């Protein structure tokens, strides 16, 4: 984004206030911070609009696939590294289904996709799209198949065929669902652009090298299609990493503007595919279309995606609850920790390692770790007491003692007063728990 002063140069400088800001300079400042839209100024000259539109366009175009609540947003990323701010739109996963599948197999496949659904630290991990491939070579059959799947599944669709006639029939049959069309390449560019325009759907653009891809993007744009997704067709892990990095860097660093679109990658079955997919989750993929995705691969990939797309400024929180560890009974001791995921995972793994049955009360500290939460007043004798009450912890553990983190040993007296429990100060580091519990 240009600076306010650069933007100001192109504004009419009338200070008319029609944009709801007192002066053109104030409006420019809002524009620079993405808090106003160019269209809010009714007096902008054509030349000024063009100059500003190109410099204010997001570096990577936002593409929406699908409609309604399951629609998938891709692109509109602003960072090369997640620690600089965050990655915004999690890479979407699609599973491919070919139109030559028998009815039974189709239903099996659809129910398999639905089964790839996991709940983890309060979020649902799942598949995002289906990619329907015309393998039959029969346009009517493909269109009927696409219609059928669209009526069976709420997931957004990718339509995969090189044949523009088959694409046209299928895409028009479900165009209100805004499928992604895969896609255009050198062999069918004009025809595919006609289809994409006629049904107002986004289009993938594929080429075997980046220079060729840039040419294709330019050509598609000249045909009047703006909603594009790039298919850089890497043939190796090296090509995948390097092409995705060049595309992303060019867009963010503004060294080349022609490739500022989300990235689609076709993922082959097997180990190579899993390596490509994991790499693409970390390095700039927007949509991965899997030929096959066994559940044993899906869960690690989905968790990787969850991890990488976490906002670094917002700690992941686990559910404040009473967690049984190693099958505890009423005699098992009661411990507490915070709901910061990292703290929780570490404590949990050390408790499991100890093999000693215990009850672990997780206290809601808004995702802060023990000492930070204590210092910020989010971990108090009251909040611990309330947590124990809300989970009925004292009906489960009848030992009458509470083990507290060594870092907050100073809470002991107040906790004893608040809960009436005997307080035992545990180790300062979670790694000391196994030894502590065994003794």
């Amino acid at each position, binding site marked *: 984004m240009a600076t306010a002063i650069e933007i100001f140069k192109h504004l009419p400088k009338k200070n008319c206030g029609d944009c709801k800001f007192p002066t053109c300079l104030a409006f420019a400042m809002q524009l620079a911070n993405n808090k106003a839209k160019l269209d809010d100024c009714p007096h902008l000259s054509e030349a000024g609009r063009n100059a500003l539109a190109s410099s204010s366009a997001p570096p990577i175009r936002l593409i929406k696939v699908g409609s309604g609540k399951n629609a998938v947003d891709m692109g509109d990323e602003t960072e090369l590294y*997640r620690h600089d701010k965050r990655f915004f739109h999690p890479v979407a996963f699609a599973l491919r289904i070919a139109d030559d599948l028998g009815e039974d197999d189709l239903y099996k496949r659809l129910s398999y996709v639905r089964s790839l659904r*996991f709940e*983890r630290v309060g979020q649902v991990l799942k598949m995002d799209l289906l990619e329907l491939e015309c393998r039959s070579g029969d346009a009517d059959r493909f269109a009927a198949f696409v219609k059928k799947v669209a009526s069976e599944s709420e997931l957004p669709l990718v339509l995969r065929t090189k044949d523009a006639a088959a694409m046209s029939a299928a895409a028009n049959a479900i165009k209100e669902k805004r499928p992604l069309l895969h896609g255009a390449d050198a062999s069918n560019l004009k025809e595919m652009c006609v289809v994409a325009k006629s049904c107002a759907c986004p289009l993938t653009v594929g080429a075997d090298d980046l220079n060729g*891809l840039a040419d294709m993007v330019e050509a598609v744009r000249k045909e009047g299609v703006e909603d594009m997704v790039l298919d850089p067709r890497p043939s*190796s*892990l090296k090509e995948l990493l390097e092409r995705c990095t060049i595309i992303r860097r060019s867009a963010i660093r503004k060294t080349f503007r022609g490739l500022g679109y989300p990235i689609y990658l076709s993922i082959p079955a097997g*180990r190579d595919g*899993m390596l490509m997919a994991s*790499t693409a989750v970390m390095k700039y993929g927007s949509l991965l279309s899997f030929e096959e995705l066994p559940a*044993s691969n899906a869960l690690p990939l989905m968790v990787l995606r969850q991890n990488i797309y976490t906002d670094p400024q917002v700690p992941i929180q686990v559910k404040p609850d009473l967690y049984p560890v190693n099958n505890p009974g009423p005699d098992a001791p009661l411990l507490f920790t915070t709901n910061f995921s990292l703290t929780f995972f570490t404590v949990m793994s050390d408790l499991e390692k100890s093999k000693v049955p215990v009850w672990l009360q997780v206290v809601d500290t808004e995702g802060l770790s023990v000492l930070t939460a204590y210092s910020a007043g989010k971990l108090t004798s009251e909040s611990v007491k309330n947590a124990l009450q809300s989970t009925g912890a004292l009906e489960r553990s009848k030992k009458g003692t509470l083990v507290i983190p060594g870092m907050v040993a100073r809470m002991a007296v107040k906790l004893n007063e608040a809960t009436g429990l005997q307080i035992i100060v545990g180790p300062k580091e979670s790694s000391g728990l196994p030894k502590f519990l065994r003794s």
Partner: protein
Amino acid sequence: MEVPVPREKWAGSIGEMELGASLEKGGSRSSLRLGGNKGLPFLSFEDPTSRNVALAGFVADSLEDVPLPVKRAFGNAVNDPARWAAAWKEKGADLICLHLTSTNPEEKDVSPEEAAATVMAVMKAVELPLIIYGSGHPEKDAKVLEKVGEAAKGERLLLGQAEEGGYKSVAAASMANGHAVIGFSNLDINLAKQIVILLTDYGVGRGDVIIDPLMAALGMGLEYSYSVNERIRISALSGDAMLQVPMICDCVSAWKAREASDDIPQAGDTLERGIWWESTTALAALLSGADILVLGHPGSLQIAKDALKGFRGEA
């Protein structure tokens, strides 16, 4: 249309170091070179030098905390560190990471002399370079690593680990006998730098330090490690000399994740999932800057090998 290649102009590079000393250098092992990189991992347009990442096989002399799938993969060999290490060599490990957990005074309390004998037995069984850890008990580790360091003088081991709260004894053991040392820090770029400063101020050469910024496993804080590692690499390449050292990432902790070893409905074959749990952790370590990966399962080693070939464009 020519797409210009957006190369970052890095001012720094990662220092080079060698592990394992060959006969002519006074040891008895094969050796491997690490570091030397001038760009972010595996971007050949930025750094044409081939990236050398070493894959270490995890071995322990006590099975207390060894994950079950890891034990199973090696059968009876896990009862003998030398045989376990030999099995790793067979499976293609570049070096061995031996944990002397039996020395823990709260458990078997094996003496430093016995521990050194274990190390010598492993060295005799395989000629690969070695990483040696104690049991994590600070006072005992000081004695164990001193003994091991002496016994393997000149072999250019990598000794673990130096921490802000206790680094002098392991630093001394490395300096006196020509070994390298691991500087550990807890998920923080500034602490990573701090431990290198402490070690070098104490007299350890910067070329003898490898940092371990703590690789949190998939689903257990991986995103923190990924970003800390990336920031460490970017700072090093931007010219921060104290971070221009190779990085080691231990991925074995991935097996502690519930999802890596529990049977979960609809989540597929448990062992296959566990291997990918460790391998995905390893990939995140590779892409964020690791120079050595420590792996527990041979399946993960094979995947990491394939990944390295793939990133280098050899596959």
